[in-house]
């Protein structure tokens, strides 16, 4: 199962210039909360912004990453 740092690195690698803060929400290793700030979100609605982040993980969402709660922002 990924760690908050894994998730943070993967988001920042996939969305160049993004800053992600990720925490393990329940301490159980599979419910995460992430705040992501990225210029790439400019002009996108919330659904599109969240999709950009979810797409990084593909089928892992709902699997090893049971939950990834997101807040996305433009810098």
């Amino acid at each position, binding site marked *: 199962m990924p760690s908050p740092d894994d998730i943070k690195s993967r988001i920042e690698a996939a969305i160049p210039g993004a800053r992600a803060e990720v925490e393990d929400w329940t301490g159980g290793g599979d419910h995460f909360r992430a705040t992501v700030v990225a210029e790439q979100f400019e002009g996108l609605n*919330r*659904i599109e912004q*969240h*999709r950009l982040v*979810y797409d990084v993980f593909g089928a892992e*969402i*709902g699997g090893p990453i049971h*939950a*990834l*709660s*997101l*807040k996305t922002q433009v810098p």
Partner: protein
Amino acid sequence: MSEQTNPIRDAIAEAIADHQTILFMKGTPEQPACGFSARTVAALQALDAPFAAVDILPDPRIRQELSSISNWPTIPQLFHNGELVGGCDIVTEMYESGELADVLGAQQPEAAVPPAPEAQPVQAAPLGIENRLG
């Protein structure tokens, strides 16, 4: 692309088209089975917004087909006028900003009460509750 008929996918698409506001969730509004679904229901109920609800738990294929239609990986999923509004995070943000009331044509409560926290039981069912997929 599969040539076979896909009755679950068709039923989901039909439900989204037939109900102005529809929430795909875990459990029911009376008994949500997960905190995210509970929070989403609570926001809709705080606005007194009528909605149909579908419990995705009885059949894993419901969630699969739903995600392939909506291109969204998590549950719950709220649709309005045939379009994905979002999951718990988005619906909660929109509730708090007043956008959800605008989108649904509902009345934002004057003292913006935050949606119920996870542990709280959910109130009486709003209008139009149906489980179309059985």
